[in-house]
Every structure is written in structure tokens, then in C-alpha cells.
């Protein structure tokens, strides 16, 4: 399934760095997201967009994560040639990431 079915996201920008929140609709899916929406998985998923690194911050009290993507915005909103110079739409790119269905995983580990 797509990440979009379990979580929502908003993108923010500071200079050439984008941040993407990932917030579980249901806090019970936090661990599943922690296992599968790793910094490495997001880096690979957004390989054509992020020239720098991806750092993931964990916020268990909110059932959320914050991904920080460096060199991801064509130099930043003030000089980027991109149509979406803020990278506002990158939240939608993140939510396209394919992850296992948590219900399938529960069945298979039985």
C-alpha cells in the first residue's frame, strides 16, 4: 500500500532544505511506519529530487516523523528555476512511497 493510506504530510522549506512531516492517522501504526518509512527508504524513493541527505527525526508523542532533505530545492525558493520552487508538492511525493500493509504483516508473523 501507499504511505498515503496510513499517514499525512506537509512540506516546508528553508533555503535549499525541505522538511516533510509524516503523521500517522492512527498512532497504532507509528511502529509500522518507523520500520518501513526509514530515512534510507525515503532517500531512495526521492532519489531524483534530493541531491543531499535525508535525516529522520522521530516524534513518538505525536505519532509522527520529520524528514529533513538537504539540497532538495534547486538552490531554494528565491533562486530555483522549478515551477514549485518551495517544493510544496513534495509531501505528495513522499506519500506515494510503497510500504507493506500492516494487516498482512501481522498475519504473516503469526
Amino acid at each position, binding site marked *: 500500500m501507499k504511505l498515503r493510506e496510513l499517514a499525512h*504530510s506537509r512540506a516546508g522549506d528553508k533555503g535549499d532544505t525541505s522538511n516533510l512531516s509524516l503523521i500517522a492517522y492512527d498512532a497504532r501504526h507509528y511502529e509500522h511506519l518507523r520500520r518501513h518509512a526509514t530515512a534510507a527508504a525515503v532517500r531512495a524513493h526521492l532519489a531524483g529530487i534530493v541531491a543531499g541527505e535525508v535525516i529522520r527525526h522521530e516524534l513518538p508523542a*505525536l505519532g*509522527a516523523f*520529520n524528514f529533513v532533505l538537504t539540497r532538495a530545492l534547486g538552490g531554494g525558493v528565491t533562486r530555483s528555476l522549478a515551477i514549485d520552487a518551495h517544493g510544496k508538492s513534495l509531501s505528495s*511525493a513522499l506519500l506515494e512511497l510503497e510500504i507493506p500493509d500492516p494487516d498482512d504483516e501481522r498475519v504473516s508473523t503469526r
Partner: protein
Amino acid sequence: MSAVRPHRAAGRAAARGTIRLGAGAGYSGDRIEPALELVERGDIDVLVFECLAERTIALAQQARHRDPDAGFDPLLDARMRTVLRAASERGVRIVTNMGAANPLAAARRTAAIARELGLASLRVAAVLGDDVLAPVLAGAFRFEESGAPVRDLGDRILSANAYLGVAPICAALRTGADVVITGRAADPALFLAPLVDAFGWSMDDWNLLGQGTVVGHLLECAGQVTGGYFADPGLKDIPDLARVGFPIGEVSADGDFVVTKVEGSGGRVTPATCKEQLLYEIHDPARYLQPDVAADFSRVRVEAIGTDRIRVVGGRGSAPTGMLKVSVGYVDGHVGEGQISYAGTGALARARLALEIVRERLRITGVQTSETRFDLLGVDALHGPDAAQRRGEPYEVRLRVAGRTPSMAEAVRIGNEVETLYTNGPAGGGGVVKSAREVVAVQSVLVPASAVRTSVEIVEVTT
């Protein structure tokens, strides 16, 4: 500076035990009328307009160079004319960064509007001192982003403005000012200052200042916490976004904080809308650096306590770094752009052919570019070719070519080469739009807070 004068909004807040902050704008072009709804029906004590994006102040500085009375927010007139009478009648104070590159001129303009409206007793304060262009040019600063010396940009530099903290805003509030107008200040500080002023928070109580930063951060983008920028039909439905109500923060002296909005307004306040806004434009949630505190959002909790009433607590903090971020605006070449659309069966192939034609034309006519982009809107413009491969062919495609050039004349040639596709390119192209502009870019430097001198100037309304 004027003597300390209590304001009636402070007396009302003290009697209630909470202060109610309204967010009247989340960016310079934001909707106008939600602020009036907050003043008339929100029972608020303070109305904050956050209107200053990173680059705006550099553009405003250019305007001020052309006209010494200009350089403040272009919508200041519209916003003040909409709310000033109602705010004055109800004793609602206004705090805003609409001063941009010229807070004093903005204060004089506001006083002139108050005079026109017959609001003779209004006091307007301008917060000065964020303009640090002279010391930045004189010093040996390097950009945080590129590491390059600031001096190397020479006369391309337009502006350097420090993100001020709460101290000068509090100083302005203590004069009894009804309207406080700043230039560059940390966005959360516009909200934190009235809290520090009302509750007498100590400037070394890092946990309270951290929680106060949570308040400011959740409110500063206005509609973004009340359901704006959130809806995704079927997954995240939000009613009545055409009339979205802007947020109200109810804050107690101990930092307890509830986000709400005017009853009957559009939008929703939910735990999910608050979480999205809490993490908006944050890097390390445990160290959100502000002029007055290193705020820690990592243990913030969000709890629904009623319809459109969300309690947000747990913000903490530690001592600030002692350095202020300074945004330096500079001229960074030019950008030219052109767009054209293709539709129907074969649209994608014709658009791709058109892109190749423009690419070759820029080469053979010798347009000087240091960077170019060839996009197909509706296909690969936002997330690149990898994402595009996962989808079928669209019915319509819009081609977009953009390039960075050393001069405006070169920039104009890019759009022109797209336009010539009308008579020289593939079949069925339509809807050309072209543009060329000078680029004002922004990078930042850090300066010691102790090197930034601020002051407050009062403008009285004279009749």
C-alpha cells in the same frame, strides 16, 4: 521612549485569566476579511498579522530606495482600513511585521489612516533596528548556505535584516501602543511578545518561552492550522474552505494553550491540523532556534477537548545561541521562462518534440544560460521523470522552459524561443505565456545578538 502605559486589552486578559491571540494573516497576500471576523466575533485581545516572507524585505528595500516613504507591505492600507475601527472600539491591539523595510513609514501611514477614520486616540509604535546592512557590509561575514564571503557580492547586496526577538516588541507594548509595527522579526516572536508582556514571563524561563514558541508557530500561518492547506478529499475532508476561520490561541499564564476559531466559520481545528502545522518548516524538532530560546517541540502533545478546540502543551526550551539569523538579499541574475500547451492523442510526443526544438534553438542562437530546466507540466515538472513513468499518458501537457541568464535581454530570449513554436513548432500548440525577471535571492549569516541595537518610535494620531 515613552513612559509605560497599561493597555485595556491587558486588563481584560487579566480578568479572564487567559489572553486570546488572533492570527489575522499568514502571509503578505492572505485573505483580508477573516481578520475582521476575529476582531468582531473572536473576543480576542491581540490581532497579529504575519506578512513578511524571506525575500519580501529585499524587494521592499528596493522600493524604499526609489521612494523613502515606501518599502512597507502593499496590503497594509487594506488590512488597517478593514480592522482598525473595530479593533479600536474593542480595545484589540495589533502586532504586525508589515513594516517590512520601512516600519516607521508604515506606522505613519497607519496613523494617517486612523486620522481619516476619526480614531484620534490611537497610538502606533514602530520597532526599528532589524536593518543591519551597514555592519554586515563592514564585517567579515560568510553565508551559512554557501560559505562564500558576503563582501564578494559587492553592490549586488540589497538588504540585510536580523530576525529580532521579543524584547523590542515588548518595549513597544509597554508604551501602551495600540498598533505595533515591526520589520523583520522572528515570526513566533510576534505572538510570544504579547504573552511575555501580559504574563510577565521571565526571559530565562526557557520552558515557558519554548511553549510560547509553540503558540506562535501554530498560529503564525493563520489558516494553515484551521484546515487550510490540509484537505485531501476522501481522506482529509474539511468543510467550507472558502470561508475558513483564522485561528485563536487561548493562552494561560502557565503556558496552557488551546487552538480554536470563531464558531460558525469555515474550516476545522483537529489534532491532525495542529500536528501538520507544528512540524511545518521545522528541522530538528528538539532544537527550533529562536532569538530568545532554543525551543523543543519533541514532547509536545495534542489533545481534542471539544469541537474545534485542541489543547497543545509540552513545549519546552533551553538557552538561545546568542546569535541572530540575518537574511541577506542580493541580485542573482535573471530568469526567463516560456510555456505552451498541447492536447489530445499524441500530445506528449508533440510536447517532447517541442522541448527538443527549444533546446536546440537556445543553442544555435547562443542564448547565455548558466542553468536551464525543460519541464512538461502534468507529466514531470514537479517530481521528475521517475514519478512520471508510473502514470499513463495525460490528455493535455504544458511545456515549460526556464533559464538563468546574466542579463534581462538574454532572459527575454528564452520566452521568445518558446513563443516561436506557434509558427515553427509541432502542430496544435496554444496558450503561450512568457516572462522575464530579475532574481532577488536570499542567503543568511549569523550575527551576535549583542551587536543588534533596537529602538521604538511612537507615532501619535494628530487631528
